[in-house]
């Protein structure tokens, strides 16, 4: 598991660990039933106290993201779909909030924003099509 710790932004370390694992589950980097790094191993890799990793895992376990098998490791839970949906939503909502705050600062309202999103999407779509055509041509 690739987890990075940042002590500059004031987010508690256990929460950083939990959030990154949540993200990996939501983005399917970690799959249901997959075993995750043992507490001790992760603590050593990150140079953090094992109690912090325990706290992160406890939080994930109580929200159903992972489960522990006694003496046999920690795994990603099977029934992920409703949870993963909620999690995906939570992540994207956080991004939207930031976007809205920034838009507000720059004097764009929500309708402007929606128009802009569609416009950007079209532009990105076109670039993609051009790219695809480009590759088709070289294929010929």
């Amino acid at each position, binding site marked *: 598991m690739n987890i990075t710790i940042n002590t500059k932004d004031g*987010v508690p370390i256990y929460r950083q660990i939990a959030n990154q694992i949540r993200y990996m589950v939501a983005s399917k980097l970690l799959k249901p039933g997959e075993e995750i790094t043992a507490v001790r191993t992760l603590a050593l890799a990150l*140079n953090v106290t094992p109690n912090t990793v325990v706290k992160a895992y406890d939080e994930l376990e109580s929200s159903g993201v992972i489960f522990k098998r006694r003496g046999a490791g920690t795994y990603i839970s099977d029934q992920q779909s409703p949870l993963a949906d909620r999690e995906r939503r939570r992540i994207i909502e956080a991004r939207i909030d930031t976007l809205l705050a920034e838009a507000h600062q720059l004097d764009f309202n929500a309708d402007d924003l929606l128009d802009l999103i569609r416009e950007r999407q079209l532009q990105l779509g076109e670039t993609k099509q051009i790219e695809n055509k480009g590759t088709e041509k070289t294929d010929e």
Partner: protein
Amino acid sequence: MSELVVKVHNLSRSFGKTKALDCIDFQASRGKVYGLVGANGAGKTTLIKHLLGLLRAKSGSVRIFGEDPVKQPERVLKHIGYLSEDRDIPDWMSINELMRYTSAYHGGWDPSYADELLDTFSLDPTKKIKALSRGMRAQVALICAVAHRPDLLILDEPSSGLDTVVRNDILNAVVRTISEDGRTVIFSSHLLEEVERLSDHVTMIHQGRVTLDSSLEMINKNHHYSSIRFSERQHALPKLEDAVSISGEGRFWSVIHQGSVDSFGSTLQNIGGVIVESRHATLEEVFVYKIGREDLRDHTQITEGSE
């Protein structure tokens, strides 16, 4: 399970006219990591020396595993591993000799663990201590502190003056010690990033007094850093409830405050300000306000440990 490993009660100590420790209360329970932070000369080393029985409590009391470390040194010290700030190990010995010497007075010495650490640090055991670099010396001193698998590990500035690689080795060995059930670690450090990573509990000492003594989680929960904005320029902000540090100018200010963001937001509303963004304060930000800048200016240096 709140088994107390260390119990310091009302400990005071003066060196000449300087109060090095002033009514200190400090407790450590089993299985946790305690970070001692404070500026140079704050009293951290003096406190550690009392825990080890190197200094006798003149007023107040010190109990380690329920015993007085001055009266029962052998019963207390056999459970303790200690890495001193100046890594005072005998220069004239070779690493091998030092290992044999240290193992002789520590019953629980684990030779295979010591060898494993020597190997990890790529140390040549035939080398004389005086021929070692600063980093290697710290590694050797660390092995002496942990190879008997102590119940209580005390480290005084374990990574001061070390490069990143050696620092990492040292921190890793500390994490390994903690990972073994029920071991307690107390370490002092001025590197707050390190304290934030390693500790469960933070004790801040300032001019011989405990100014903050709390779990890292509570410190995090209770302190926020908020960027705020006013519609009009402000020359100075009025005294705000919960605010502990204010900086900024004109329409934009940042405030470190206690309590919830919501309650601070409503305090702010009364004077026409809004919170633009809020996050938890870092340990460093909390430290700076607790210790205060004036202290960095007036630098009353206490020569710790000298009488």
